[in-house]
């Protein structure tokens, strides 16, 4: 559940209920508290990175419901659907993560959690076009990576999705 429609923020704070990685949690938020800060600072889920704060780079990608969105532009108080972070997704994405490790899909690793979440969503969407390199590259347009030159992540995804 989220914040009820008439809730007032007493001294700017309310306690909001979220479901994160399957666990119901209660967190303190102001109207403008970002989901990424709740995850990192209140729930110690630091796998979700905050590399730009402007929705430009994709490092903070999480699933809200079944959609990959940017936790840095998501206000925690508005979140109604369950949230899944890299910590929740990693155990289900081992094939992809191994492929990333084997195919040059990561170097410094800072963008990697966001990339894994986005790829996981791409895979879960199970649309026909994710085995096509052009479509995969377009699908990763929101995940900036400075280390790999993208060839590794694309290859990893092709390999994982191709099966």
């Amino acid at each position, binding site marked *: 559940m989220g914040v009820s429609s008439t809730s007032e923020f007493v001294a700017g704070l309310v306690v909001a209920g979220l479901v994160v990685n399957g666990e119901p949690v209660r967190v303190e938020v102001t109207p403008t508290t970002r989901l990424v800060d709740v995850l990192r600072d209140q729930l110690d889920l630091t796998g979700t990175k905050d590399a730009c704060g402007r929705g430009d780079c994709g490092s903070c990608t999480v699933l809200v419901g079944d959609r990959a969105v940017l936790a840095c532009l998501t206000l925690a108080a508005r979140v109604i659907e369950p949230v899944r972070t890299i910590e929740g997704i990693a155990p289900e994405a081992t094939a992809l993560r191994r492929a990333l490790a084997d195919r040059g899909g990561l170097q410094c690793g800072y963008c990697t959690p966001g990339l894994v979440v986005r790829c996981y969503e791409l895979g879960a969407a199970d649309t026909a076009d994710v085995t096509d390199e052009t479509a995969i590259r377009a699908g990763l347009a929101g995940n900036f990576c400075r280390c790999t030159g*993208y060839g590794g992540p694309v290859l990893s995804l092709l390999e994982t999705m191709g099966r």
Partner: protein
Amino acid sequence: MAIGHRVRPDSWEARTSGAAKYTTDIRRPGMLVARILRSPHPHAEIRAIDASKARAIDGVAAVITAVDLPKVAYMHLGGAFSDRTVLARDRVRFIGEEVAAVAAETIETANQAVGLIDVTYAALPAALTPQQASPPGTPSIHDHAVGNVALEVNRSYGDPDQARSRADIVVTGTYHYRPATHLCMEPHSVVADWDPAAERMNLWVSTQAPYFVRKEVARLLELEMDQVHTHQVAVGGGFGAKAKAGTHEAIAAALSMQCGRPVRLVLDRAEEFATTASRHPFDIDLSTGARADGTLTHRDCSVVVDNGAYNHAGPSVAVFATMVAANLYRLEGCRTRARLVYTNKQPGASFRGYGNPQMTFAMESQLDELAGKLGMDRIDIRIRNANRAGDETLTGWRLSSAGLVQCLERARAEIGWDAKQHLAGTGRGVGVAAAIHVSGANAFEHSEHSAAAVDIHPDGTVHIHFAGADAGTGQATLLRQIAATELGVAFDDTAVTMMNSDGTPMDLGAWSSRGTVWSGHCMADTAGRAARILRETAAAKFGVAASRVELVGGQARCDGEKIDIGDLVALADESGRGRLHVEGGYLTGVDKMDKDTGMGHFSPAYAFCVQAVEVDVDRDTNQVRVVDVVSVHDSGTILNPAGAEGQVAGAVVMGLGAALGEELTHEEGRLINPSFLEYAAPRAGDVPTVRSLFLDGADRAGPYGAKGLGEIGLVPTPAAVANAVAHATGIRVRDLPITPDKLRGWGRPPVSPRSVWLRPSRWWTATIRWLYPRGLHRVLHRMSDRRTGRPSEISGSAPVAGLDRPETVDEAVTAYHAGAAYLAGGTDLLVARDQGLASPVRLIDLSTVRSLRDLCDTSAGGLHIGAAVTLADLRRRLSGPGPEPDRPDRTAGQAGDRSGDPAGPQPGDRMLVELLDGLATPQIREMATVGGNLLQQKRCSFYRNGFNCYKRGGWTCPCYAVLGEHRFHHAVLGGHRCQAVTPSDLATGLLVLDATVQLSRPRSQPRQVPVGALYRGPGETVLASGELLTAVTVPAEARRRLAAFEKLTRYEGDFAICSAAVALELDETGAIGDVRVALGSIAPEPYRATRTEDRLRGCRLGDGAGLERAASAWARDAHPLAANGWKVDAACGLILEALHRAGARAVGTDVRS
């Protein structure tokens, strides 16, 4: 064995699962967060600083200014080159320079406190370019630097005069390489935790070189080096940005010492862009001489390096770059002149390649020009002049191996060079460029040395201790591979701790491509020593000679006898405390570089690289697309092929960014593109898969025959691309990056607007524009600066008091009051709030208003789109047929189910699909809404980034785009005081579909407004205060039109440079009947090209000349700025392309989107 094999990178499990802890993830009990107060002036005296108000705030634990720090100048080079203090003392020299810092309980409190520090400045004249910084009459930036010259070096290698006299031909040219930023995904960050009892500073820091951080922090805070301790932490990218200490480490440490609590300091992305050290811009005058047969004789180069406000690596970058000029090919002589000039801008620093990419761009571009003049093949001329193994270069580099010729031959074969030479001028072309680079440089105190330790544990595992860092280069993996190889254990039985300075031998870290050679040797030595001890111990037990004992499979073996190496730990005399601890190292035998002459063999080995690229240049827009890259390397033995390929691919793509888009752009000393959005670096869709190839071969100087590799992959890339573009178009671009404006006139003839003299409506604007460079800009700039003091440096938006969650449109509009804001996707409002462009006191959440998410066909066959429908939902719906099986359509029940619709998407819908696919990123499309996209604010970089411009500050302020960077995102038609455009692609597309929007407010009937009448300025609309855009309707007949959308961007997902949408009907004869053409990002509002429409009516789609005339008919009304006239040509090209594709839909040749 492990060497030469593919292994999964060290800590891959933690790095892919979110478990790895980076500095930004470190949490310490009682930790505070720090923020920095930065200079708003490019050059000013500091008269006074009053931090008392900041100190008085609850929640502020520490505030420091320059007086709280020892009076010690910071910088690694020392001596006269040390020109910077941690916090500015009496003067600030660039916008963003650190003036004071605060540590507080929360980031909000820290920001508030920073805003309360009063600094009295007296502005000084600023020198923003090397030209402005050169005498006479120039402001002096540093007292010690006469004429603002930080360093001037004139050198001769070989005999340049004699060589010149032998030249039959000399080619000269001037080349420019613009400043670029590293763009590490993890920003500069540090956690400092001072332990007063132990008098010990604990640091977790995102760095490539913990040693330099320790050394610098100790020096600056007057501590002993062994009081400063670095801890292991994951590092999120370096590329040279983190090769030396910055100022932030000392700031956090000083704050922690002041309050006795841990302090975290993480630069935000705008700070990262605007204040950290970047790649030095170079202006290079170069001439190259050759004999008629193509044998090079000499080079003469004169380089002006923009140092920015302080020396970081500037002096050594400038000098190293000029050495490269003498060393890539065999020459008889080379004369170099390097002038390093201070300017009032963010300083430059080391960045992958260290001056080499700049110089190689000039050299390798010019070599192609020379080959052209001589009528020689461009690869043949390189082979003729290539260095060979055994050569000593003009500056004394002794090449124990040199695979340059083989690299060239391999690249020729791989790219299909010979078969592609005929492409010249066709828009498709190939280019090649070569590079040489060091494998570590013996350039600093202690830099001849690397050291490490290993522990062998009784369970047979091997633990490596190494004081350097791995910022993603694969250093940790490599150390483990080497230890595993030397000790005969499995890779998985090794582990490594890096950066931990306690009890770990000193190492200088990862820079100068020294990781493989320096640290590799050092690890081989260390593990080799341990292996000897194990062999000797085993030999004693077996009663054989040590030389007969072999370490394999985690055991020592000889003649059928075997013992686990873990069991040898207890037996070895050298063991203690339950482990065998062995230290070792590498001492390079190479020269120290002679600081006066530049002579010396100061690297153990030199790597070579040749890249061949193929480009495709779009005839409509002149946009360059790289379709293939082959990078061939002589890096000796490749120790870890997977890691090597990754280093090359990453470096090449970084080089492609430098070639085609990346450029830090300043105006009045302020960076205008401090974000991923505005700085055009490549995304996945912008680049091909890089093909990395490695020559066989070994260099006797490297560990196992390896040479360096980390930097060289970026070095030749910009030149290779420029050479390919010259081949494809005949146009030689000597000024990076190669943006489409620089190829103007190639694909299409430039279109000329009608003379302004004949257009009285433009006289006023033309006069103002004429006056801008003649003093008007200066006057307005001064007024805007003075009147409001300074543009907001810190996002200090007032807190939002509440978030309403209405369920109906009525509740939403009733909840509205002055100061409130409707919140849809949040992808613009929250960013604008951060940029100081919106400060709502209350937010009204539209995501809970169910009717705003309606998405359905109307009874008449039109399309009704609720304003809060996300772009992704709209895309899914339009592409039909029906919801995807695993992705329930959230609008089901309200929306008409289209799964039974045999017709599938209509042509107009298809246009919207292609528009949506190119709009922003997948994640943004999941969040951003249709209404929010239409109503987003303008994207002008000046407006967005704190410039006190006309739209921010009012009529006394200038439009910074008139004289500033306006090539891409400003108007070419209809601009007046503001040159910004409406950024919404959707508005452009909906305009040709005759869409209307519905607007609601309390106690009134909703009104319908055509999209064409929605805008009254750039990103400004006719909405009244509190009015809510509730829906968009596309009429049925418009959906049936043949339509297409084209867009030109700098990178995939960027806002449009320009876009074109067309929607047309064909009459029974096949001629164009009713037609709409709209252009986006061309005018302040989405622009209907009615002159073009008039010309198109009656035209046939096969009538190329007629279409061409029609497509450019609108352009007579254009009134571009000085440097964006090219957009007019490109927009004409986009119209044509859109017409062709729309027409193709009629005959059914278009596959379904």
